[in-house]
């Protein structure tokens, strides 16, 4: 019998694409319900203000307006504030975060009231007519200012703007630093970023008043978590609430959140007994959807004279914004273990201080904590290289952990699954043409060209696949990190895969179908993947932290293997041999030594359905569920090299070449992986060169539109040269997979910034602010050359 061809390692056309390409995919805003009302949120224009009164009489008199509710009107209806799931420390301050503020607006865009009307336009007009009496209060946006004595307090009753402190320490750090002949110390500012998914957020709550049931459609990454969180906020029991994430147009962490508008739509739908829709406007998205990054880092390395690292120490201030959202305080912790990068050392210390400011809350943004960690170590290692007179390649090779294929401890305190850091670096150097680039750089230096070349490296270690539930407990996170899959075979051998992770652009349907196709020997086209619906896929922990393949994919594989085990018993029964007498390959059970006597999984699905002749005691049907909780994280790693050309007159930076070598273990679908790498790298380049959320001193977001929040487009970024390194299988899971959703965003910013610094190193430049915008680079050059740029 012909063995089905393996699909793993190939790139069949994505199952998702036909409806996306033809515009037939239905996003939340495409859905409409009979009798639906439209909600618009009245938001504070002030970053900090007392709400002295709200007069909705004009709005209520307008055509089509059904209701206006203020924070005070709804105060008694909430079961609790919005969920904050990560109380990282004992000293954490967690002021309640209500869906509409009751008394004070604490950031520009804080919700003050909602207007419900029969059309979106009417709701929008009426929202303008709601008169709010604000008493402006003192504002603080800068973290260092917020911690100073006498700073205005974001939450007066907390008595401080310090949200928490958290530390991780391995070894005798102080002694290592005291004894080290070489110490380098630098300060880095990681600017605030705004995730900017193409689809803004959108919510519909559809009540069934007679039944007391609700369906909530939301452009979310986390329908399962939202469902639990809505119990906390609204008191609607889970048994009465179905959450659906239909097609979702990108998230990057910004939809890994439990938002006020989800709770508001539900509550208002409950009060009015009508469906309620809210669609976020683009400029509203900049204020009302969480931001990311925003750290001030002090990085230190202790080393010997050769530059061999002995100790790591990082002191980090993290901007929380005005409230703690679902994992605001925990986001930096996701990077806490990888501040050592892929380097060895004896002592390790990371300290975080969370700070409240009158700004939009921050939370997870693609990479969440790990881009910040990688930036710190990949910058400071170059500072060490300069100090000991080594080139950036040499300093890294000196410090790499040796290659390994069995779990191995690293300075951050975790055990890594597999890695060969020299191998990815070798490949990256070759793909980049490193030696040739260095020669070209030399030629331009000697000629004194206006445009100088710089080469930047980033050799990174990531941890992802969130997360072993026991580790989450140890870190005080409120939930687990497992995921689930159910596989159901129809009588004719077609397959439903029901997965608990929830895609928003990643291609789960394609990748999961490939795993199942290979496990069960069933054609890719006969496999349907169902996600993003708490009724159809009741068990799940959703999609973030590069977990969908490393956790969700493994659950899919395990469910498929349970199907194999059940069908094996049916096959053995039908062939009248024992289970052990059967060989299994790609969907076919054959008798050892008599390969012609065989049964296939689709045929056995029929047997399971008719149940005419099953082994004694076996239940009919073919449906299996697996829930997978990983014993460890997975650890992608790699080497990125960026070559830039810097115009030393204007400060303009152009990327000449970008090489990304990422070992993400076993690759299921190369095209999808390439897409994740390229997209991630570009998002990281955007942070390095383009994007920055800028607040004025009085807390106005100055970059609140796509015209001045500089998201680059295809024409502004290079094509990415991609390599995969040695493709060492992860030892954490039996698929050998790691994660790939965040590698690019984690690795690329320091590669780009190191390149810009390298291009200007002959002028004595050792630092450049992020983003390395033309003006920032120009200022850097001017300050080094004594003011005139010459």
């Amino acid at each position, binding site marked *: 019998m012909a063995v089905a061809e393996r699909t793993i390692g190939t790139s069949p056309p994505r199952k998702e694409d036909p409806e996306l390409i033809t515009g037939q995919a239905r996003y939340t805003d495409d859905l409409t319900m009979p009798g639906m009302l439209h909600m618009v949120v009245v938001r504070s224009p002030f970053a900090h203000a007392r709400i002295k009164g709200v007069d909705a009489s004009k709005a209520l008199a307008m055509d089509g307006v059904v209701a206006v509710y203020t924070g005070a009107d709804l105060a008694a209806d909430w079961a609790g504030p919005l969920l904050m799931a990560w109380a990282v420390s004992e000293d954490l301050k967690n002021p309640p975060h209500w869906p509409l503020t009751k008394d004070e607006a604490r950031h520009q865009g804080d919700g003050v009231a909602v207007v419900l009307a029969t059309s*979106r*336009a009417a709701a*929008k*007009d009426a929202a*303008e007519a709601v008169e709010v009496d604000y008493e402006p209060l003192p504002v603080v946006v800068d973290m260092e200012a917020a911690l100073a004595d006498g700073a205005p307090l974001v939450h007066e009753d907390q008595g401080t703007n310090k949200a928490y402190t958290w530390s991780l320490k391995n070894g005798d750090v102080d002694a290592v630093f005291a004894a080290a002949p070489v110490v380098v110390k630098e300060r880095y500012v990681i600017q605030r970023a705004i995730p900017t998914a193409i689809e803004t957020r959108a919510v519909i709550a559809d009540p069934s008043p007679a039944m007391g049931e609700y369906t909530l459609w939301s452009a979310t990454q986390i329908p399962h978590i939202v469902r639990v969180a809505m119990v906390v906020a609204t008191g609607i029991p889970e048994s009465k609430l179905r959450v659906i994430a239909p097609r979702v147009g990108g998230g990057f962490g910004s939809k890994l959140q439990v938002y006020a508008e989800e709770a508001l739509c539900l509550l208002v739908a409950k009060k009015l007994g009508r469906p309620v829709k809210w669609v976020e*406007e*683009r*400029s509203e998205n900049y204020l009302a959807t969480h931001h990311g990054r925003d750290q001030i880092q002090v990085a230190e390395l202790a080393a010997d004279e050769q530059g061999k690292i002995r100790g790591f120490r990082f002191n980090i201030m993290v901007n929380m914004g005005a409230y703690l959202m679902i994992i605001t305080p925990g986001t930096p912790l996701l990077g806490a273990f990888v501040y050592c990068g892929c380097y060895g050392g004896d002592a390790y210390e990371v300290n975080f201080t969370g700070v409240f400011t009158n700004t939009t809350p921050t939370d997870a943004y693609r990479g969440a904590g790990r881009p910040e960690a990688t930036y710190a170590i990949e910058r400071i290692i170059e500072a060490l290289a300069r100090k000991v007179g080594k080139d950036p390649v040499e300093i890294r090779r000196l410090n790499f952990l040796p290659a390994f294929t069995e779990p191995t401890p690293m300075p951050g305190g975790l055990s890594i699954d597999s890695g060969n850091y020299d191998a990815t670096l070798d490949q990256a150097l070759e793909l980049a043409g490193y030696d040739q680039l260095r020669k070209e750089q030399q030629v331009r230096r000697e000629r004194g060209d206006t445009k100088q070349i710089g080469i930047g490296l980033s050799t990174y270690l990531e941890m992802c696949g969130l997360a072993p539930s026991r580790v989450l407990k140890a870190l005080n996170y409120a939930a687990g990190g497992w995921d689930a899959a159910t596989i159901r075979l129809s009588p004719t051998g077609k397959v439903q895969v029901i997965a608990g992770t929830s895609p928003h652009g990643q291609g789960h349907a394609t990748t999961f179908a490939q795993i199942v196709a290979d496990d069960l020997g069933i054609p890719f086209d006969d496999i349907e993947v169902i996600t993003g619906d708490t009724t159809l896929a009741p068990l799940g922990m959703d999609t973030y932290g590069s977990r969908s393949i490393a956790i969700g994919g493994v659950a899919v594989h395990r469910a498929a293997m349970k199907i194999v085990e059940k069908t094996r018993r049916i096959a053995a029964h039908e062939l009248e041999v024992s289970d052990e007498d059967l060989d299994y390959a790609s969907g076919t059970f054959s008798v050892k030594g008599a390969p012609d006597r065989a049964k296939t999984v689709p045929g056995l699905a029929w047997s399971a359905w008719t149940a005419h002749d099953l082994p004694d005691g076996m239940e009919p049907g073919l449906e299996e569920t697996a829930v997978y909780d990983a014993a460890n994280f997975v650890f992608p790693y790699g080497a990125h090299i960026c070559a830039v050309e810097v115009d030393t*007159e*204007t400060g*303009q930076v152009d990327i000449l070449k970008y090489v990304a070598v990422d070992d993400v273990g076993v690759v299921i679908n190369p095209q999808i992986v390439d897409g994740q790498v390229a997209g991630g790298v570009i998002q990281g380049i955007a942070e390095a060169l*383009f994007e*920055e959320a*800028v607040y004025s001193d009085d807390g106005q977001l*100055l*970059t609140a539109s796509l*015209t*001045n929040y*500089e998201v*680059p*487009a295809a*024409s*502004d970024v290079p094509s990415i040269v991609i390599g995969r390194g040695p493709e060492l299988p992860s030892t954490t899971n039996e698929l050998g997979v790691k994660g790939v959703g965040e590698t690019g965003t984690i690795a690329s910013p320091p590669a780009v910034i190191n390149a810009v610094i390298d291009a200007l190193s002959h002028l004595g430049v050792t630092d450049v602010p992020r983003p390395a*915008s*033309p*003006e920032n680079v*120009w*200022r850097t050059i001017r300050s080094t050359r004594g003011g005139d*740029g010459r």
Partner: protein
Amino acid sequence: MIPAAFDYEVAESTDHAVQLLGEHGDDAKLLAGGHSLLPLMKLRLARPSVLIDIGGLSDLAYIKDAGDHVEIGALTRMCDIAASDLLRRHCGLIAEAAGQVGDPQVRHRATIGGSLAHGDPASDPPVALLTVDAELVVRGPGGERTVPASGFFTNFFETALGPQDLLTSVRVPKLAAGTGWSYQKFHRRAIDWAIVGVAALVERDDGTVKRAAVGLTNMATTPLRSAGVESALAGRPASAEAFAEAAAHAPEGTNPPSDTNASAEYRTALSSILVRRALEAAVA
């Protein structure tokens, strides 16, 4: 992103447009490509009570040879201007500047008339037209009149157009043979407006600059001509040294804005660098 309520009228002809403007007075706005007006309306920064749609006036969409000048109808889209052989032959600077506007989608909607009437000092085509001394043809309640580009831009988003005026065409003088030109647009992303832009024309006589015209984008509340640079160049050799010296005059008379993309100080520094580069490119 929902505009305030407005009424909508479609102009069937140029006369009809003028008539509608007369009827609706100051509350009306003409709608051409909509790529400046509609974003402002969606942000509710503009709230006209009536829109008069002139987008369908195909008799105002043309580029034609009119002897000593090329005439461009006000409804001509940027993409057609950028692709015009006639303009490339006689005044390539205009085609080049139009080709630098936004991205292909924007260029297929945005019109030259809208770009001028909007009066945004950060826009590219107005500076190019100012630099070549174009003339604008306007139909108003009192009939037709022409306005030189140098007298058209009066302030930030303000022009010589009255509330009942319709811009019908632009007359672009043909450049003398051998005139070099360049448009240097400095921006961060391809789709962005210029942080600073420089349009330059250099007419030479035997290696000497006979006439130079230099225009600056986004260096003041209106598009600007750089008199300081122009006079510093007249009669000088068309050399790198002369260009550099003249370029040092670029900041004179400017009043650049500061925003999240660039400070005024940086724009000032850029203006000299870009003027020098534009002059060099014009004669290259």
